[in-house]
């Protein structure tokens, strides 16, 4: 008779709840907690500004995605006390747990950057990382006749780190289709020293920006947004003017993490063991999805691959068994490149995204644009609601990264992050 409390019923929380519902003995209780009853299909947000997603269709009730076996509590979590094994909620009695699973994701904090939410916000500057922001941006793009568009990642880490690049590719295609591409300048402004963090991928994505006439500004740490002059100002005094700014604000973990003793780091992400996904603060707290501090992408595919390991390890813990050290940092993302094409990238803690083929029968190309990948991305919406959230395995795509099909460069490529973790 154990109680498992899952904080957050988004992608990660829902899929882990549904896996546990199939796995745990009937007399165990599974509780999922979230603030509202709106489950947002976040991959759809990228298409919203270009009029290619219907905002109403991106949201479904959270409760409806959860197994009947799961008890759903709709309330705001204010604190977890890892010593007392207790979750505190607003307008609900405190909840005692035997195991807690942190699945409360990450959120954007637009007020962390000076000036960002000033009087030009939602007028000349938008984010597509929320449903409201994406819808407002769609209306603005609809009426955009020309000028300078700046896409700015303010700081890492962010959810779906390739999405801002995809936005540039789709914007290029959007304005070409409207025959006004020559009247629009697109600039990608990043704090990184290239288009992306991983070297091979960064150089390929960098040349894709170049091919599309997107200017790349690197190592730009946005200090403030000045709406008087519609200009981004970096901390070292550089300036990037804009007519329309598409901003990806910094992210943090959920608010309650900051109020939970010993649980989170400076940004509210939860220090987590990279292989077993147990938290570093307590043996009976596991962490999944965007809420972790791991050097893995904050993306749904990662939550999906983590789901198998977390649900097994919750059960191992309850049975007094040792944990599986099985997670390898696997991420698998489609990158929309415009005009009905997409690329697929597949990587983990140790192997950066490489060209080649994903080992499916039909040889889905990796790090290369194709129509098949775009269809894969569109089909993913169905897979998301019917397979991924249900906690089922996706056929032929295992939780560990396949190495076959990838073209490894001469000598082994290791990402800087994995080198770092080995030095620890």
């Amino acid at each position, binding site marked *: 008779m154990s109680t498992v409390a899952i904080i957050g019923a988004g992608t990660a929380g829902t899929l882990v709840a549904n896996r546990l519902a199939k796995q745990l003995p009937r007399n165990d209780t599974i509780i999922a907690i979230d603030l509202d009853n709106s489950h947002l299909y976040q991959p759809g947000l990228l298409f919203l500004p270009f009029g290619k997603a219907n905002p109403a269709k991106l949201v479904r009730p959270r409760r409806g995605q959860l197994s009947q076996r799961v008890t759903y509590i709709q309330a705001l979590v204010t604190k977890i006390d890892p010593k007392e094994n207790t979750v505190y909620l607003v307008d609900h009695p405190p909840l005692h747990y035997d195991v807690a699973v942190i699945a409360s994701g990450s959120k954007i904090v637009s007020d962390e950057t000076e000036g960002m939410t000033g009087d030009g916000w939602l007028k000349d500057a938008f984010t597509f990382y929320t449903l409201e922001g994406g819808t407002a941006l769609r209306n603005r793009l609809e009426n955009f006749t020309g000028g300078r568009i700046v896409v700015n990642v303010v700081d890492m880490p962010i959810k779906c780190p390739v999405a801002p690049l995809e936005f540039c590719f789709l914007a290029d295609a959007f304005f070409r289709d409207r025959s006004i591409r020559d009247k629009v300048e697109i600039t990608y402004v990043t*704090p990184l020293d290239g288009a992306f963090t991983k070297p091979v991928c960064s150089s390929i994505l960098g040349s894709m920006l170049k091919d599309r006439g997107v200017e790349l500004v690197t190592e730009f740490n946005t200090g403030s947004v000045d709406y008087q002059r519609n200009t981004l100002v970096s901390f070292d005094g550089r300036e990037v003017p804009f007519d329309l700014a598409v901003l990806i604000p910094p992210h943090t973990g959920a608010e309650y993490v900051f109020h939970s003793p010993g649980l989170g780091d400076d940004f509210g992400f939860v220090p987590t063991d990279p292989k077993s996904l147990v938290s570093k603060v307590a043996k009976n707290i596991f962490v999944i999805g965007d809420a972790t501090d791991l050097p893995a992408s904050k993306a749904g595919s990662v939550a999906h691959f983590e789901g198998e390991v977390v649900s097994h390890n919750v059960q191992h813990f309850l049975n007094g068994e040792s944990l599986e050290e099985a997670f390898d940092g696997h991420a698998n993302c489609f990158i929309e490149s415009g005009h009905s094409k997409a690329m697929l990238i597949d990587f983990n803690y140790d192997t950066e995204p490489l060209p080649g083929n994903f080992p499916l029968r039909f040889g889905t190309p990796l790090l290369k644009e194709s129509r098949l990948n775009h269809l894969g991305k569109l089909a993913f919406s169905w897979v998301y609601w019917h397979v991924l959230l249900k906690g089922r395995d996706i056929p032929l795509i295992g939780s560990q990264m396949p190495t076959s099909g990838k073209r490894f460069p001469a000598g082994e490529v290791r990402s800087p992050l994995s080198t*770092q973790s080995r030095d620890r």
Partner: protein
Amino acid sequence: MATATYDGVEVEVNDEGFFTDPSAWREEMAPIIAKEMGIDELTPDHWRVIRFVRDRYLETGGGPTVRVLGKTSGVTVKELYRLFPKGPAKEAAKIAGIPKPVGCI
């Protein structure tokens, strides 16, 4: 691999001048590295950041980013840029003899 000589000791550095072996670093090297980068004098405020950056590296295996520094070092981001005008995370990491900090993916 390139080398540099600081305080009479030859150390290995990468193409951008970051130490490849942080354990080769000694405090006496810091002012010399700083001077090379155009920072003529290391004030107590500089040292506060350099020690913080190095401690963080030894603790976590990675150098802190500007955002982490601004939030946790006790020095504001504006002040950090006054101390290290070309980028506090990078410059402090170089002076503290640790690898260049990388953004997460």
